[in-house]
């Protein structure tokens, strides 16, 4: 009896620091975000007014928030689907096929991940430059040099320009993750599939995909969270929400309101919506992608 009591105390003492840190730096600030969203507050002074749910009311009627919501969903959907497919295809090719310069490709695909977002934004700003940019110069060969396409200037195109930069940045990282789990799939499965006459594509969908499913599930959640976070950095560095607020996403809009429009409380209301949204989306994804683990 005395021994279990001592053990319990010991465990408590070991866990307590981590829990205390978690509560102080995670739980309390999160609750604070929700609390702040109920105030009208400029952010710099102690002067706060309680306004209840008014911030949320304004939020629901705001066209700008709606637009940033749409942009965010578009980014999450397109970036996730394209990045994931590309990463899976590249990973399958690099692990299953014997091609020359495998390591070279692996490094090339991974490099964007090492670069900071600011550098990537600078690279893409140069690529997208309407007059001297790489993209318009290449396209100019086919469509003539009239009316340059404004990659970061046209409101219809700008969000896709950000999509391209984000995919370019993310593919390598997820490719390496998928490669790791693909290489642990037993070679004998592919051999027997070969003998049964299954082609490469059938093998990919019937063997590779099911066996790395748990990995895909985990990365899906990563995707959602990181797309929300990374899109802020890209938007901030490349367009700062412009032109005319056409490329705002959740967090860039929140930043603009909280830190540049003296509406900290309103910003926190956006923050709580984003928090709830990403939490819910992760939960839904987790639920719908749930499969019985395959054991061999």
């Amino acid at each position, binding site marked *: 009896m005395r021994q279990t009591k001592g053990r319990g105390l*010991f465990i408590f003492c070991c866990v*307590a620091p981590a829990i*205390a840190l978690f509560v102080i730096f995670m739980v309390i600030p999160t609750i604070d975000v929700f609390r702040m969203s109920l105030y009208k507050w*400029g952010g710099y*002074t102690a*002067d706060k007014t309680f306004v209840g749910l008014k911030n949320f009311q304004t939020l629901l009627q705001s066209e700008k928030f709606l637009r940033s919501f749409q942009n965010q969903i578009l980014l999450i959907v397109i970036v996730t689907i394209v990045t994931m497919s590309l990463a899976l295809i590249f990973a399958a090719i690099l692990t299953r096929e014997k091609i020359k310069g495998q390591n070279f490709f692996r490094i090339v695909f991974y490099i964007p991940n090492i670069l900071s977002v600011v550098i990537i934004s600078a690279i893409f700003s140069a690529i997208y*430059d309407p007059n001297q940019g790489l993209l318009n110069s290449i396209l100019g060969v086919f469509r003539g040099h009239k009316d340059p396409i404004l990659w970061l200037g046209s409101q219809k195109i700008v969000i896709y320009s950000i999509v391209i930069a984000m995919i370019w940045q993310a593919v390598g990282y997820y490719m390496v993750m998928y490669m790791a789990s693909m290489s642990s799939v037993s070679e004998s499965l592919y051999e027997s599939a070969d003998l049964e006459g299954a082609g490469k594509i059938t093998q990919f969908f019937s063997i590779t995909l099911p066996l790395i499913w748990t990995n895909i599930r985990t990365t899906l959640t990563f995707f959602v969270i990181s797309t929300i976070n990374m899109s802020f950095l890209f938007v901030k560095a490349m367009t700062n929400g412009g032109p005319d607020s056409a490329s705002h996403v959740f967090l860039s809009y929140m930043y603009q309101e909280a830190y540049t429009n*003296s509406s900290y409380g309103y910003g926190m209301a956006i923050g709580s919506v984003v928090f709830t949204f990403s939490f819910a989306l992760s939960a839904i994804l987790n639920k719908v992608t749930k499969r019985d683990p395959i054991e061999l």
Partner: protein
Amino acid sequence: MKKKLVSTLLSVAMVSSLLAGCGATTAPAEEAAPATEEAAPAEEAAAEETGEGQVVKVAAVETAYGADIWKNVAAEFEAATGITVELTVDKNLEDVISPDMKAGNYPDVIMRAVGAESGMTETFIKDNNLVDLSDVMDLTVPGETAKVSDKMLGGFTNNTITQPYGDGKIYLMPMFYSPCGLFYNAGLFAEKGWEVPTTWDEMWALGDTAKAEGISLFTYPTAGYFDAFLYALMHEAFGDNFANVLQYGEGVWETPEAETIFAILDKLATYTEPTTPANANDDNFQKNQQLVLDNKALFMPNGNWVIGEMAEAPRADGFEWGFTALPAVEDGGERASYAWFEQVWMPGGAVNVDAGKQFIAFLYSDAAAAIFAEKGAIQPINGLADTLEGDAKIYYSIYDTGAVAVLDAFAATESIEGTTIRGTFCDPINSLVTKDKTIDDWKAQIIKDNDTFRANLKQQ
């Protein structure tokens, strides 16, 4: 057993050290603030006469003029008054001082203009969190015999920026100013034999001439530069009604004068270099400025800081900076140029109020003005512009050559969630150039937001 005791002790030590760590970091922040507040009056009383022992905390943003000007001025101030200056100068001033401010420790004097991206100054205005500086005008400049009001250029303290609540009290003191207008390549005009247009009609005629030579009439660095441009244009078009427009008067944007402005903006968009919106962001705006240096666009709205900003940039042969006020709306009409100026102010939480006011008064001394002017930072001080030489003289003497100086800005409002002056009055120019919005869309937006601004007008 012994082992267990040791491990228990160790883990207890671990937990307690953690808590001790928390205690140590939170305690001073909470206790220190009231302590200094109590101590300050006593100190002040003791050192009232000499200034010895008094402290003033000054926070200034580092801009293109550099950080040294502030260090030098602080040293001069200390020598003149004996008051110690605790100086914070940083490019990202808000990031540096706001954690302290949230804990209740405010600098006494803050040098940060309205219109900065962070909107810190606007937040203090909206929160009624400023010290009334009207009496600074009556202070004698330390080390001199003149009063501040004797030195101040007319108009600079009597506008909606320095008197944000319109109650006749000055809350922000004007500092460095820059005339804003249209910048162009004077060399190109001389070479082609073109006249700088004095009315918008001449402007459009020039636009057609230039177009034939493959040069666009207009470009702009970012949409944000339209604030100065619009204020000047509004002053020309609205005339006496200008003050009412700045107070978001009812129906002002449905008047014939407003139509004139919309017509000019609409036409200007068609004459704008078409790739401008793609580079009209904080990263790439210099590419738009480069268009003027490369003779691809004739005019851009800017302030005289652009000369330093583009000093290293390549340029067309025979390039020479030219600067003009906005063309007049009608023949022989007024030509306006916005005078953009920075402000220095004291937050409501300032502790050393008197020392802070002394410091602000000292900023207008000959010694301080000389330090600032050496780096090109020009204050609105009588006679200062006459002492300038070379290029700088051209810009600062624009108001002597007939252009009207516009100093006001839109009246302060309560913070309005989701609506900003810039979003309503500046950003849509991008949409207009790319044809994502029509001038009627923009007009409808201005009319709607104008009502919102009026409803939230700041009441002191």
